[in-house]
């Protein structure tokens, strides 16, 4: 089974890249596999992953470990389960600092208190000695962020960092991530299913379908002039706060299982614009704004205009 297939992606310094897709699209797996977080014996990753010019695939576990947590920080979806329940949050942050830096326990703890303050946790001196269950969901996510930032990482990978949170908390966390990116000069890879979140924070967007990139481009380009029919469907399916439409655009069928991806274009079975050429697997094409679809630019402009006019293609 190919959970991820043929993903090429580069993240520039201080850039925010959003990876968007539905469940099973391989957006998390791709990041985890690059970082060696998938431990199962039957996982194999081929290709090349370079971080600051250094090849990561095939790197020994102990060298990879040095990068993880120090140069590459991670934030996960569910803050309720992301922290070890039996240790104080300050201890958990200090543990990471001491794993990478030669500092005393007291120094690490002091740094943990500073970090908790920086991510907006009130009374960090007191909170540092509390256990995860004594924090609310939003506050726990702040703790996870503080931990990810503890060694000033150059790259931050955030996997659905706000999905489990309420709207107002989500706003707080997104704002915090933006602010911290400025202070820490980190690049961010943001994995999410929410086009809205992507639109708020990403510089560049990768749309994934069935483990393959369907479309890659600047945020504005992808959201305003999407090229791939799957992106059209995704954008049309989001109910909007600003305007009300009578019907939502839908993509017929359900996301394809990575166990049986079609040989040609993975999206073809759900695509209403498919034609003979789609039996062949499309490659990413384009200049800056890439997409994997056999339709010509003229066809896309024409079809897209029609789709927007009728409010979708249900």
């Amino acid at each position, binding site marked *: 089974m190919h959970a991820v297939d043929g993903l090429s992606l580069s993240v520039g310094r201080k850039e925010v890249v959003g990876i968007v897709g539905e469940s099973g699209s391989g957006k998390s797996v791709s990041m985890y596999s690059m970082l060696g977080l998938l431990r199962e014996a039957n996982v194999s990753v081929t290709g090349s992953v370079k971080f600051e010019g250094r090849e990561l695939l095939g790197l020994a576990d102990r060298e990879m470990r040095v990068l*993880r*947590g120090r140069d590459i920080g991670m934030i996960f979806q569910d803050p309720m389960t992301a922290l*070890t*329940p039996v240790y104080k949050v300050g201890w958990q942050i200090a543990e990471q600092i001491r794993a990478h830096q030669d500092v005393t326990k007291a120094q690490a703890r002091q740094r943990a208190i500073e970090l908790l303050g920086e991510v907006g946790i009130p009374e960090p001196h007191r909170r540092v000695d509390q256990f995860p269950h004594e924090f609310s969901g939003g506050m726990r996510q702040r703790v996870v962020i503080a931990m990810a930032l503890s060694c000033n990482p150059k790259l931050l990978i955030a996997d659905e960092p706000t999905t489990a949170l309420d709207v107002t908390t989500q706003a707080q966390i997104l704002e915090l991530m933006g602010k911290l990116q400025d202070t820490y000069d980190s690049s961010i890879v943001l994995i999410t299913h929410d086009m809205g979140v992507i639109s708020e924070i990403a510089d560049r967007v990768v749309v994934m379908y069935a483990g393959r990139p369907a479309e890659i481009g600047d945020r504005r380009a992808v959201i305003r002039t999407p090229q791939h029919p799957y992106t059209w469907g995704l954008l049309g399916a989001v109910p909007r706060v600003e305007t009300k439409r009578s019907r939502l655009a839908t993509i017929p069928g359900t996301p394809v299982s990575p166990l049986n991806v079609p040989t040609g274009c993975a999206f073809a079975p759900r695509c209403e614009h498919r034609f003979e050429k789609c039996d062949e697997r499309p490659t990413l094409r384009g200049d800056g704004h890439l997409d994997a679809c056999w339709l010509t630019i003229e066809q896309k402009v024409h079809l897209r205009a029609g789709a927007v006019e009728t409010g979708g293609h249900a």
Partner: protein
Amino acid sequence: MGVFILRRFVSAILVMFSISILVFLIFFATPGVDPAARIAGRSATPQVVAQVKHEFGLDRPLPIRYGLMMDHLFIKQDLSSYVNVGYKVIPQIEAAAPVTLSLVLGAAVIWLIVGVAGGVIAAANRGKFIDPLIMFLGIAAISVPAYWLGQVVNLITQSKLHSSIFSWVPPSGYVALSSNPGEWALHLLFPWLTLAALYAGIYARVLRAELVNALNEDYVRTARAKGLSERRILLRHALRCSLISIVSLFGLDFGSLIGGAALLTEVVFGLPGVGQLTYTALQNLDLPVIMGTVMYGAFFVVLANAVVDVAYGFLDPRVRLA
């Protein structure tokens, strides 16, 4: 934390009080049964029955009977057997308890070390040859009954190979720790191993399952993302969280073993412990002794559970609030 411990022990005392009432009611207030005749034994004379009636206040109201009973059990400690006339129950239990305690404590140390080490090694080597090997040894240890294993051990160490490699093994029996610590350990070595085998097998298997679950938890993924070593993740994060279920298992096992469940091992190795005492009393229908051992067993089960709950509080901060 102090309040938590205090509260836990107050509730343990209340539970023991309720158990004493329950035991009393079962023995003395079961409708349609004459407790005097039962206590006096199978072939008692009417005089003995009358004496029992008087001694236990069986002609008086229930609360007074309960008071008298507790007086005999705990204050005067002169509850005596009518089957083996003259045998006082409490001194018997007091003599048997150190034997059982020695047996179970030693075995517990062995099975905790072996079980936890086995579970951790198996979990750390998932998918390799050593993991199924440990799990197989575990299931083998669980499947072998203690009395059979004990007999085999006895057969080998006491007769078959006693003249060669096992010549140092002393005959069955018990030597008090206070009289000769070396002999104490030597006499108990094979009983310890026999009793520990079953529990080491169970604990290794349970711990491995818990660890494998824990290693799939989100917090382990976080720990990996932090750049910690696999060893540290396994021992400091996964094991620490998995120990919680091992501790609760241990509390139950330890309490019931001290309370008399080590009976088979005691009988096989000729150790005069509480299990054997209960066993003999049951054979003779010696009611006062049965009652005494039941109270004693309940006491240890409740105590062990209280200790486990306190240990829980140390292991899992979420419990302290509840």
